């Protein structure tokens, strides 16, 4: 396996070796050293409200069950029978009742309770006394919550969640603070789109202010000729999406002026680039005014203004999450192979906000982020073309130099001098190298 010195040669200040995206052996190492070490976003407390509620997901390639315990804590269990290795739960979500119903392995009927404890084994007389008490569903060692978002790490030690997130906490704060009562819930279904490209391509693309004018040229052009968004009371279902598509065609100066911050752990976030008042502040919209009134009543005018003035666009939580706090869309990426990834896209509802706001979230998801979107599919096409291009053995390097040497070191963040700086890739790659070359904990 690649020695650390060899890995270090792959990531240079302004370029990255193509094998980081294309070498299956590097990918295997990423699963061990990144996905089995970092904190990963698994979901939200609303997905496991009550004791016994569970959902299944992946941590890297590990299938896991996220289950609410009787004491209110959340436990993450590796979805693998201790006996012969079958997945014990095939459902995407559900509820184990407190009496009887358990995670039962379909192969030989070994059953486990919601805490992962082995409760019953057919033909148990065949085992030496006490042998089976050592067995259970493996519990993921670290599980934490940040403002309702569930994180877990497969490593027994490492930085705390708070330290891991660092300044990126502010993006979760933005998402939660905007919700009246601080209440959010996953709602409206889950898009699951696959692309034939490396997982890092999506995390990079979501902070790339130089790509929309090119990748999304066609949807920008079409949206410009779309009917003008309707006046209050006469809106079209798709107005929010048309506004977003048009905004992707913002002039270069807008992208250059957008804030671009990164953290030492590879996270990054983008200041808002929207100049459309309706999108940003809901100007003139009665639904938004109703929502603003709710926030003012709850927080006071000063605090409500502060909350609504936060202008963040995409946030990347390296290595598995991307979200839009303002539009309440969150994506989790699961690496499947060096050249294959699947992205789960969730919408969040603010249950105490006007219902129409969630309909806007749904429209936005359908037209911009959904599996059949003309915006998303152009991104996917480009990821696949990059992956195919990187199979070329003639050229070794991927250039990530835009803005290099001009990045601005701030107390907790490294900021691009302009919004189109590739500082976010450099930060992700630096974090990548840190994970890949860190001494493994025994």
């Amino acid at each position, binding site marked *: 396996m690649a020695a650390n010195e060899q890995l270090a040669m792959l990531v240079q200040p302004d370029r990255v070796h193509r094998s980081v995206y294309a070498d299956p052996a590097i990918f295997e190492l990423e699963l061990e050293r990144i996905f089995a070490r970092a904190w990963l976003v698994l979901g939200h407390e609303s997905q496991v409200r009550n004791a016994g509620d569970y959902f299944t997901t992946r941590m890297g390639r590990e299938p896991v069950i996220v289950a609410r315990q009787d004491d209110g804590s959340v436990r993450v269990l590796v979805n693998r029978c201790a006996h012969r290795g079958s997945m014990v739960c095939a459902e995407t979500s559900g509820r184990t009742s407190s009496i009887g119903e358990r995670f039962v392995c379909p192969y030989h009927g070994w059953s486990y309770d919601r805490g992962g404890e082995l409760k019953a084994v057919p033909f148990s007389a065949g085992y030496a006394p006490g042998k089976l008490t050592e067995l259970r569903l493996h519990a993921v060692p670290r599980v934490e919550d940040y403002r309702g978002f569930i994180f877990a790490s497969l490593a027994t030690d490492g930085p705390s969640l708070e330290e891991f997130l660092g300044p990126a906490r502010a993006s979760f704060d933005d998402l939660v603070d905007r919700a009246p009562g601080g209440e959010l819930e996953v709602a409206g279904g889950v898009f699951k789109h696959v692309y034939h490209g490396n997982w890092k391509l999506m995390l990079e693309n979501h902070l790339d202010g130089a790509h929309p004018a090119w990748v999304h040229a066609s949807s920008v052009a079409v949206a410009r000729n*779309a009917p003008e968004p309707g006046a209050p009371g006469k809106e079209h279902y798709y107005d929010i999406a048309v506004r977003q598509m048009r905004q992707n065609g913002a002039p270069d100066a807008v992208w250059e002026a957008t804030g671009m911050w990164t953290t030492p752990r590879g996270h990054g976030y983008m200041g808002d680039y929207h100049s459309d008042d309706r999108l940003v502040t809901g100007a003139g919209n009665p639904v938004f005014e109703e929502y603003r009134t709710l926030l003012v009543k709850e927080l006071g005018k000063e605090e409500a203004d502060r909350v609504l003035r936060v202008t963040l666009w995409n946030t990347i939580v390296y290595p598995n999450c991307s979200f839009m706090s303002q539009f309440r869309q969150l994506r989790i990426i699961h690496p499947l192979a060096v050249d294959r990834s699947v992205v789960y896209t969730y919408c969040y509802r603010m249950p105490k906000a006007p219902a129409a706001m*969630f309909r806007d979230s749904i429209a936005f998801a359908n037209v911009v982020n959904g*599996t059949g979107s003309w915006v998303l599919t152009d991104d996917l096409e480009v990821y696949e073309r990059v992956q195919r291009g990187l199979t070329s053995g003639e050229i070794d390097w991927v250039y990530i130099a835009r803005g290099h040497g001009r990045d601005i070191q701030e107390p907790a963040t490294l900021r691009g001098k302009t919004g189109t700086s590739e500082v976010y890739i450099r930060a992700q790659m630096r974090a990548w190298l840190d994970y890949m070359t860190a001494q493994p904990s025994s």
Partner: protein
Amino acid sequence: MTPEQFLFHEAQLLDTQRYEEWLALFTEDATYWVPLEQNQKDPHETSSLIYDDRTLLELRVKQFRHPRAHARAPLARTIHQVGNVVVDDLIVKSTLTVIEFRNEKQRLWAGLVEHQLRRERDSFRIARKRIDLVNSEGEIEGISILL
């Protein structure tokens, strides 16, 4: 023209890339819906793989023709195979199998389809088309074709 013949005609327009003529089959108040969830009731409270009213559908077709529509350049070749047509007055249920070929990759899509038709002279127009893909809730690739 029978409803069944009309569905075959619609499929043929798609398979010969006559997308503007296909669009013209839809009424001004039409919807074209590919739900995300099985038995999905509502297009506004739950996301959809595609939910277009007539305006969005027209924009979608225009986007197909844009020279920098990367996921559609070149346009996919498709075969829309329509089967099991059951006609109940103007509501027509059928099964759809689509083979898509583009950039050395062949994909297969399949679903249950429901058309709400309106009579127009000796033919029909489409007031509502709903396609429930068998794998709508699964891990699927981006949908860059018309179903």
